[in-house]
């Protein structure tokens, strides 16, 4: 008898199964733990302007800002591609800067969700998600109360 089968038979069938199951479990639990840990650091939290003003996130942390684009606030800078506008929920106002081609249907008075970070007092957006159709309200704003929404619409008209 050579050494090979002997070395293999150190692990009994049941033990091999156990080792495999343990390995899979450790890897999957590891994945889950790592996922939860990474999510705490990397998920970008959603803010509406009043939260942004009352509890601003630490500077440079990736967050999302959702609200309505205030009427009359949209200005294009001399370079032709940077825009400044104000996002509001009717209670607070956050100035936003964005460089790039705005999405289709991005206009004053429409709903917008901006990905980006606070730098000083200005929200620097990397990406704008505008409404997809005429009825679009950012999903995160759907549970604003009816009166809040009306107020926003009235304010931004």
């Amino acid at each position, binding site marked *: 008898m050579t050494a090979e089968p002997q070395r293999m038979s150190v692990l009994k069938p049941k033990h091999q199964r156990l080792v495999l199951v343990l390995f899979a479990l450790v890897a999957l639990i590891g994945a889950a733990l790592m996922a939860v840990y990474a999510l705490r650091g990397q998920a*970008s939290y959603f803010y509406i302007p009043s939260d942004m003003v009352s509890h601003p996130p630490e500077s440079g942390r990736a967050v999302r800002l959702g609200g309505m684009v205030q009427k009359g606030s949209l200005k294009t800078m001399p370079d032709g591609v940077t825009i400044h506008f104000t996002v509001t929920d009717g209670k607070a106002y956050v100035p936003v800067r964005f460089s790039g081609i705005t999405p289709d249907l991005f206009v004053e008075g429409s709903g917008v969700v901006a990905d980006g970070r606070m730098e000083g007092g200005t929200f620097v957006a990397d990406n704008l998600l505008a409404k997809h159709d005429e009825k679009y309200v950012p999903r995160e704003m759907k549970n604003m109360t009816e009166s809040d929404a009306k107020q926003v619409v009235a304010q931004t008209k």
Partner: protein
Amino acid sequence: MIAEIGLAVLWLAAALAVLQLVVGGLSLRPEGRVLAALVRPVAVMQGVLVLAAFAALIMLFVTTDLSVKLVVENSHSAKPLIFKIAGTWGNHEGSMLMWVTIMAVAGAFVAVIERRLDEATLIATLAGQAFISLGFYAFLLFASNPFARLAQPADEGQGLNPLLQDVGLAFHPPTLYVGYVGLSIAFSFAIGALVTRNVGPGFARAMRPWVLGAWIFLTLGITAGSYWAYYTLGWGGWWFWDPVENASLMPWLAATALLHSVSVLASRDALRTWTVMLGVVAFSMSMVGTFLVRSGILTSVHAFAVDPQRGAFILALLAIDIGGALALFTWRAGTVTEGKRFAFVSREAALVFNNVMLSGILGIVLIGTLYPLVTEAYGVKVSVGAPYFNPAAAMFAFPMFVVMSVGPLLRWRHDRLTGERGARVAWPLLVCAAITLSVLVGLELVAHHITLLPALGLAIASGLFPASMLPLVGRNLRRTPLPVWGMVVAHAGIAVALFGMASESAFSVERLAAMTVGETRDVGPWQVKLASIMPVAGPNWTALEATVAIRYAGAAPVELHPKAETFSNPPGTRNESALKTRWNGQLYVVLGEQATDGRWQMRFWWKPFVPLIWLGGAMVGIGGALALLGRVLTDIRRLVAKDKIAYRRMRQGR
């Protein structure tokens, strides 16, 4: 009339599915054996009927029958024919009908050609398939009838979303659906084998081509979808970690793991329970994906039919199908006997490692996709994107790529990497590792601004590509079996795609400019000049078309024509980007709006080696196709040989 026929045929097909389930279930008992002969013909007939219903819906769209609600809401008489046909599945009801059609046709296909599996397991499989289909029939007939008429015919249809009016729509959803639904066959096989307690190599050999087929379609569907999103959405990105994209990635990850474990089961009779489990998980992921997309509980760029009630329906289906399958699994898993053993250094062990890594990535993607739902239950709103997914998935993917380059060289059951074997296996691998290391060091020295992940990606891809060719070394290439070629091409495709992804994120150059006509800018090695802006018109759109003259490093200029299109029915706009592909990358040009001072907003990207992403994806699909072809040819040869033997025996009067 066509609509009524379509609906009637659909009901008939649903009735046949009931029959298929009941007869299939009964014939598994000894006293019901006589019924067994009925199952295959019923499955075939069901497939034919659903296909007829689907053809009826296509007819309605082609003729633009404005008394049908679905046509009115999603089509328009002035739409080009290809988008009328593709529009059939560009909406919720139509795509669900396509789902059921593919499911029934796949079942019919199994009934017609599957001859290797023992009859009882096959009948249990077809009954399982009927059971899953029934849920979707109910969903279609009660909650999303595609053939509903309007009380008053409309004058004109509302048209198709401009973003969907693209050839991508004609190919991407059907391919992806064949993949999703093909996995239902794997699911049914797993159920069938559990019911008849027949989990073994024979079952794995019968299941393998179906898994392979579904996986090829999933791969190609995801690749095509990624390219479609890249050039239509005008964001210059090719993967957004959007819930809908994740919904297609998760079944792919599970199917990839299943594909490899089913191979182990077929050739080595190990990993029995694990394979069955993966069969259940793979289709479950398809259903979870469908649920996430259709219920609208997650924000997504794919603004599909969003309806909480439908979401609840699919959630119930999900609970019944997957809960049932898992219950059956727990009940019967104990009866699945131990497979063969293998050593720590063996091909099986490498495959197990990669299976677990794939499951790890699957877990990462699943948790990341569902996390916003969980936090929302506690009143905190978050969104999860690339900063989470990229590093978390890479933690599992990179070790997997390393083992992937070693695994195919190892022997089954037990291998040693010392002595003569070591010289044959270890040396070439060391060379590949050296390539990886030198690329990594070189990148850090030359371009240290590149972040860790892309640098690692470039390095590993450079080593993985030659390593994936190693299984061919020392073989007679003419006599190398097709499945081996398939594996080599698919593994090399992974390396190619990884190189494209890493290069795109490491070397992309982006320029955003407001340009007057005649102005010139530099974008990486390119010189771009806005030559003119002209209005143009298409069949159902008008557009502003820019002529951009581009020169690569002083070569002769070429013209590109990005457009900003305006659609009338329904009203909408779309930025049609223009692409210039060279061997070493792609220039991507988007025309934006005109600023108040008369300058035009333009966006340019120079993306070195970005086409490799999709080339690699296609290679993975082609590799799968080669392997499938090889397996099917072997099976046919075996069947022919069996017939010959039977014939000779008959002639000799034995």
